[in-house]
């Protein structure tokens, strides 16, 4: 009987035990990677950080440290790539913002003449400091309050002036927060972005080596993926120049 009880308890808590055990292993590996970094063995640090990532855990700090290790190891493209991943998880982290800004200066090619859409810039300015989850919860709060006030209005039949005004105000707040959440989601996840990671990354006028070279890319340049063929991505640079680049020359976010 005691054996059965023990087995049952073990089975019930097995996922939790495994999770705690896995988390402890990840933390150990992370700490070890940090030690390699401190000893300036950046390639070993990169290997261990990637190992933590391969165990199915991601965090802004992990991506940040990966970006640092890649940068110190001389891989500008992957550094920018992982800083962008870190920024997506923690857009308000000043260390990430600083390092991303810092390392992008080293890109051999700077995208001059950037044409920005003022409306898009405005919306990005509104949401860039917030995590997607924060905006989603904010939308939820307004949604719940709006539904509750509808409960008062239609469930309980109370239809006085404060209830009507409250419903309108909450509806406006709900639409605004939902709109910003959708924009953030679209910008972070639906818009496919990539970072050039190889040194010789020629951008062609067509999806072929035979096509003319439109421009010379460089590690660390961020592009937006418009379409793709088997081997090439049709990419748009930040200054609106467009061309085709080989898939193995970029890392897709």
């Amino acid at each position, binding site marked *: 009987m005691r054996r059965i009880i023990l087995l049952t308890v073990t089975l019930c808590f097995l996922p939790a035990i495994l999770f705690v055990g896995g*988390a402890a292993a*990840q*933390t150990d590996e*992370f700490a070890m990677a*940090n030690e390699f*970094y401190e000893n*300036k063995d950046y390639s070993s640090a990169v290997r261990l950080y990637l190992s*933590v*990532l391969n165990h*199915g*855990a*991601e*965090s*802004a*700090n*992990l991506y*940040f*440290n990966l970006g*640092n*290790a890649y*940068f*110190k*190891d*001389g891989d*500008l493209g992957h550094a920018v790539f992982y800083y962008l991943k870190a920024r997506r998880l923690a857009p308000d982290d000043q*260390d990430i913002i*600083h*390092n991303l*800004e*810092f*390392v*992008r*200066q*080293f890109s*051999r090619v700077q995208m001059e003449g950037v044409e920005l859409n003022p409306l898009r810039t405005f919306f990005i300015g509104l949401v860039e400091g917030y995590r*997607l*989850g924060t905006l*989603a*919860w904010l939308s*939820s709060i307004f*949604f*719940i309050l709006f*539904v*509750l006030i*509808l*409960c008062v209005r*239609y*469930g*309980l*039949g109370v239809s006085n002036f404060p209830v009507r005004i409250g419903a309108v105000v909450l509806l406006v707040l709900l639409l605004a927060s939902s709109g910003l959440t959708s924009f953030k989601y679209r910008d972070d996840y639906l818009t496919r972005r990539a970072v050039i990671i190889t040194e010789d990354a020629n951008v062609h006028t067509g999806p072929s080596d035979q096509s003319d070279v439109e421009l010379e890319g460089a590690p660390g340049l961020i592009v937006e993926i418009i379409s793709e063929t088997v081997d090439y991505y049709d990419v748009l640079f930040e200054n609106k120049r467009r061309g085709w680049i080989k898939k193995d020359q970029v890392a897709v976010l």
Partner: protein
Amino acid sequence: MSKSLTTTLICAMVLIALGGATGVRADDDTVVRVSLDRDTIGMDEQVVLEIEVSGSIQDLPPPQMPTLSMFEVYSQGRSSNISIVNGQVSSSVTYRYLLLPTKPGTFSIDRVAVVYNNKRYKGNEVNLTVLKSGSSVSQQLEERATDEEGSTRDYFLEADVDKRSPFVNEQVTLTLKFYIGVQHYGSPELSEPTTTGFWTEILGNKAAYYQVVNNRKYKVIERKYALFPTQTGELTIGRATIRTTVAAKSRRRDPFDMFGDFFGRGVEVTARSQPIKLNVQPLPEEGRPADFTGTIGAFSLSAQADKREVEVNQPVTVTVRISGTGNIKSIAEPVIPQLDEFRAYKASTNESISKLKDEIGGAKIYEEVFIPRRPGDLEIPALKYSYFDLKSRQYKYLTTQPIRIKAIKPEGYAASADLPYASPDLTIGSRSRDIRYIKEDIGATSRPGYMLFVTPVYLVVNGVPVVLLASLILVRRRREKLAGNVGLARSQAASKMARKRLAKARSLAHPESAEEFFAEIRLALIAYIADKLNISPHGLTVDGIGRLVGEKTDDGALVEKLVGVLQKCDYARFAPASLTQQDVAESLAAAEDIMIKLEAVAFA
């Protein structure tokens, strides 16, 4: 201090500054350029002599002209130009003279000079040939000026090139001359010649001049092009077409048409040039360097570093300049060798194109950035560049001097000394010289691809209020529906009331309280049926109830059982003492069974 006073002071300071910068200091950069619009003319023709005096002084003195006894000289005025760029003044004055020859021969004009502050600035020498025949034109031109009937043409368009068998990428100068011997109105409209197979640069138009062909004086409008053949073999320069309006010839003298010419009545005419065939030669194979990239002309090469001492990881910009005459646009970049001690990047490419003396030239300037990887005395090796020299007709090498760079390790740079990249000159939004340090802990982790929107917590939190709202709305609607339909309300409440009464009866199920028990059983059944049928329970008899239920169901046993229980209830009211515990229990079980079966009967 008032605003107007401030403005006045600023203006005064600017004027003083400009005055200081634009003083009449004589510099040695004063240049005197002498040029003729043509180098060969006939006795009946004229030539324009231009003397341009330029320098960084404002009051440029007029030139001292030599005695030109073999010409009649007429001044055609002067034009001046002053520009101030970054406080540097540069000015030029151009004096124009019309020369009419008085005798044939070859004359040299070499003693034009400018004297300033007791210093003499001499101009360049130009030569002019005056033909005895009275005309500088070729026989071919005379033929072109003659029509089929042997008389001179009123207008014609002539195209000519300076060479017929150029090398590939060598400049060929195409000259279009529109000769017009009658009055014309407005500017002629030119359709450019087709130059397929050439890289073309327009050299420009020459000021109109006059020339005598076949004893007829023509006004000549001239335009020149520099053509660079891009392929070998036979290439053709297509026809050019020019359209203009000339004065119409009057066929007969009309005394009343005396104002016709005055008001400029004209007719539109078109002239076309002849196509020109060129035989483009390939460059000789003999002696061609392996790194030859097709540059042809006369060039020089220089390389200069912006600094000779620099911190490790800081950039040194080396400006490589290839200048001379030739097709500047086709000049390829010099090859920068791979260096272990430097990281080398291309920074920028610029070109400036000049068109001096109808020759395309200028400079191509490459900026290369070299970043020392380690401290010490380092060297950027000499650069080599090969080209085909047109004058000597052979390949030549241009080389620069090696550039020595002293790379020093900066003080207090330990934190950033291991940066794998050179520090950029400008730090965007930050004065930091390194990235911020790694995070000590891994922080909050999640699964890669984790999306809040699809987590159970998020869905439940957002779903519960919706369910609540739907429930409240349903309850409210139901209430409203029941309030407007008494029968329905009674029907729906009937079961609940009946269950309550049966529960009460169960609590009274003893022989001592048999009378109350049977009264409750009777009320439960009769009230249930009355509520279901929306009729008053008062005055309903047992038979009447049996009949009403019989109308709603085919289950005769149910009706019979119902009537039996109700009759037993009536009996118990009058003789309660005769009832035993078994009667009570059987009646309760029967009533409960009847109630279950009645629930299945459709009363509506």
